[in-house]
């Protein structure tokens, strides 16, 4: 039986059903907004790209928007994927010359998106 605050807190954890649905890639480039072809990364397709949290692709981009050399590129899975698909995706991305600072897997928790959208 939980007795300390920490133990009580841990005991309230709600287990979620977790499903891999995509990857956020943080890409560094001096060449403007990255561009990807559908299908070039197998089951992962680029859904949007943001810079400093503001969506810069697809759709309207204010000419006033100041961008830095670090882009968040959200790739969503087009079919059921496993961690091994992400490994292959990262390898392909590097092979194609994309320099990236980090990758964050995207999951759903009990069917709900466990990640934010860009503004």
């Amino acid at each position, binding site marked *: 039986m939980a007795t300390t605050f920490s133990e009580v807190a841990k005991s309230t954890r709600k287990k979620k059903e977790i499903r891999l649905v995509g990857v956020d890639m943080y890409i560094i480039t001096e060449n403007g907004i990255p561009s990807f072809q559908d299908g070039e990364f197998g089951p992962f397709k680029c859904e949007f790209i943001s810079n400093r949290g503001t969506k810069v692709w697809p759709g309207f981009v204010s000419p*006033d*928007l100041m961008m830095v050399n670090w882009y968040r590129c959200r790739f969503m899975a087009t079919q059921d994927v496993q961690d091994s698909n992400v490994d292959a995706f990262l390898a392909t991305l590097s092979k194609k010359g994309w320099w990236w600072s980090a990758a*964050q897997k995207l999951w759903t928790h009990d069917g709900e998106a466990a990640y934010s959208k860009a503004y």
Partner: protein
Amino acid sequence: MAQHVVTMLPGEGTGPEICEAVRSVIDASGVDIKWEYEEIGLGCLEQYGTLLPDKTIKNIAKNKVALKGPTTTPIGTGHKSANVTLRKVFDLFANVRPAKLIPVLKRPWDKIDIINFRENTEDSYAAIEHMVSDEVAQCLKVITWPGSYRIADFAFQWARANGRKKVYCVHKANIMKMTDGLFLEAFREAAKKYPEIEIGDVIVDNCCMQLVRNPAQFDCLVLPNLYGDILTDLCAGLVGGLGFAPGANIGDNCSIFEAVHGSAPKYAGMKKVNPSAVLVSGIMMLRWLKETAAADRIEKAMFAVLDERKHVTYDVGGTATTDEYAQAIVDKMHAGK
């Protein structure tokens, strides 16, 4: 043809009635403005499927200046804040929030005249959040060199143009050495162009304590987004609350002026709320448009009406409706001619 074309965003809840009252005052000041009304907020969801329709964005992009009433931001879940989206879309990087004592509103302090310059587009507001396990959430705090430099540069330029003497950077760089450290470093770099202005820095928690103990010591403050969000409301509280707090969101080519309070939906249609926050935001807008004489006329009349206390709204001890308060300001302006 009107001298200025301004997008009016009445917002929701009490926003429309407030904005109509404010428009009546601004129009009576003699300034020549053509208002173009556009929609924003929860009311747009059904018709457009978004809180911020494209036609609203296009109209603001055309006019480059807007006056905005309050909107409601869903908490925890649901759609993104229309306010934050506007700031992001137009890169309105400088949130300028003056906190100045209104003579009639008696406070424990005898002098507060602070201009807050809140970086408006980065920090924890970059909308990069993930559940990184089923019991851990993570939000990326994004601070960039150009984003930090330009808000500091903007603040110094504003200070120079308005005769302000001191600009201080608020941060937590003792703990967040990379992010707040970069913000502070960019501030110091920008400061080199303004040698006549005294600079300094203060850790955010100490700044809060100092603001409550001795707010008169501060002149201009430059803050990252999150601290700015919190401290600007603290400053508003020091001078009488959000009911009198103006706000300007300024970018390189576009500016949106807005009240920073909520939309108070439970009072919608009752015409009892105080429109002063939108009005003083409108006064800021007029000064931004170089309509200084009209801005001064409205401000003087508003202070006079508040001072008389005969036609003020319930929140400042009166019984006047929104419209009666606005009309009293108009009458005072006309009497002052």
